[in-house]
């Protein structure tokens, strides 16, 4: 089997050959290693990689598997299979107003029809006592506000629809009085 596995933008190509029960030969970028493994439980794998013991804890996720080794979590993506699955999202600049993490809406400091500038706060969220402000990804006009205060929201959910200006506008005064409520302390 051939795998193309990506961790943090580094892709490595790996060839595997099953050897016996619970042993495989792995060739990673030209280097060969012998791997013996024990499936300890649903999430735990004990590996012996060329004589070195490692405990790995593995979980499936939408973008690949999370592998936890010695306290560090590695997000491992199979590039061959994920490229087809995903549609150009990933870590590019976001173009939608959606939360990073499940949150509760604290306030929506814009109304439908408001002109907003790129970077202007449009939704204030709270997750676990911490406030986060989602900002407009480009200059434009608020077309729809899909949430209200107190609502629980999840990643992927579009909270505010913004219609982009034809061209990047350079003007656009800050006419939203609630904007002062937001403070960027980053």
């Amino acid at each position, binding site marked *: 089997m051939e795998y193309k*596995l990506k*961790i943090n933008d580094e892709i490595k190509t790996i060839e595997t050959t099953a050897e016996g029960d619970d042993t*495989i030969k792995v060739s990673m970028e030209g280097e060969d290693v012998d791997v013996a493994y024990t499936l300890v439980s649903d999430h735990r794998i004990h590996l012996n990689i060329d004589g070195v013991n490692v405990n790995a804890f593995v979980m499936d996720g939408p973008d690949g598997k999370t592998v936890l080794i010695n306290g560090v979590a590695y997000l491992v993506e199979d590039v061959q299979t994920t490229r087809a699955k995903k549609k150009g999202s990933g870590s590019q600049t976001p173009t939608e107003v959606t*939360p*990073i*993490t499940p949150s509760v809406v604290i306030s929506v400091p814009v109304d439908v029809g408001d002109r907003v500038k790129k970077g202007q706060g449009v939704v204030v969220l709270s997750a676990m006592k911490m406030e986060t*402000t989602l900002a407009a990804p480009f200059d434009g006009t608020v077309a729809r506000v899909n949430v209200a205060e107190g609502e629980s929201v999840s990643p992927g959910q579009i909270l505010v629809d913004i219609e982009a200006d034809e061209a990047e506008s350079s003007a656009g005064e800050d006419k939203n009085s609630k904007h*002062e409520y937001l403070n960027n302390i980053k």
Partner: protein
Amino acid sequence: MFKKVLIANRGEIARRVLFTCREMEIATVAVYSDVDRRAVHVLEADQAVCLGAADPVESYLNIDKIIAAARETHAEAIHPGYGFLSENAGFAERCAKEGLVFIGPPARVINDLGDKITARNIMIKGNVPVIPGMIQSESDPAVLAEKATEIGYPVMIKASAGGGGKGIRIVNTPEELQASCEAASREASVAFGDGTIYLEKFFTRAKHIEFQILADGHGNVVHVLERECSVQRRHQKIIEETPSPSLNPELRAEMGSAAVAAAVASRYVNAGTVEFLLDENNTFYFLEVNTRLQVEHPVTEMITGIDLVRQQLEIAAGNPLILSQDDIVARGHAIECRVYAEDPANNFMPSPGKIAYMQEPTGPGIRNDCGVYSGFEVPVNYDPILSKLVVHARDRETCLPRMVMALKNYILLGIKTPIPFLIDVLESSPFQKGQIYTDFIERHFSEWQPRLVEADMARIAFIVDEMNANRRKKTAVLSEQTVSTPFATLGGWRL
């Protein structure tokens, strides 16, 4: 002693209180919100009462509902834990009025010490050294500017009703002052319903050292040694230890006496914590008193062998302290790491979600005060603390590898945790040398990213797992929680 105690809190601290109650044969009543039905404190208490909706105002902060739950279950006393209503004088007063014992200081003490200006004045009268700064709150920009110049820049703006790092601003130049004061006041107003602010001298290389105190209703006061809490991110402690590597026996005795003086000056009763700032010249200043059990209380328990929750219960029941200052002797060293549901590589953004798998570290000298379990869905509505991992060993040198080992053996899948960050901090040279100041994280770890040294092993684990994927019950794939976006900015903390 009480026959039944209601615990007006959730998660790990509710469970912590529950343990001691059970040992003392005190029945326990848990309270919970709709999203917490499966929370550990609900599962482990003798009884549990649902308060209402997830929003704290409808549940854990709702005084009427909590009092009603205590009435209904015939609880005699209420332990507030930390956070929520623990420092709410109105709640303490209401308990007293209803004939329920509030396990904490009297309302008067909470009120006095909760107002930072009042507290400063009490300490000045009690000869406890305070930070150079204002002795009254102010809103006139001109007066503030004058005071700031008098104190000398940098200055720190603080909320009079503050706590937990909320409403704090550091001002380096006169030009920034007015805008910062306005922002701080606004934040304090939102967080505490009180926008009152004042100014204090800001120390760039300071240490945060606090002393545990115990005071009974009969005039006995002791301190239970110090905790070093300088490692903070966004003004929130993440690693605490005791003894502090910065104190020598003389300074410890001096600061301990000041802590006792602070307790006496405020006519303190029950367990509390006197926070001090220690500057580079080993001069210390009173910061504030936390009128409750502290998150980091376990390190004190580890080195002294004293169960602080038991002490709280005994004091609240009116019993005199059986500990004298001479009984309180440190043995060994203890460190606590706070394990939050958060992403240390992304500005410590909260990371709520379902814990797909959890395995707690065990071994000699390891204690994990934990509020979650495999399969538990960490709710978005509350403080993201999952557990407090504490280790105890004969000295700091032995404690550090023990903690690193415990962190590496602490498995949490499904949410992000600061574990890799904590390991790097503990293994860093300045931490190992005890060179810890409140700016430690900003100075040494502001651009921290995990070191992916075992990435190739992770790739191999991926392959082995994939080859044997069918062994796992197929669970719904968790929703995406990993994309970072530059358009999310951090705001203040809410209560």
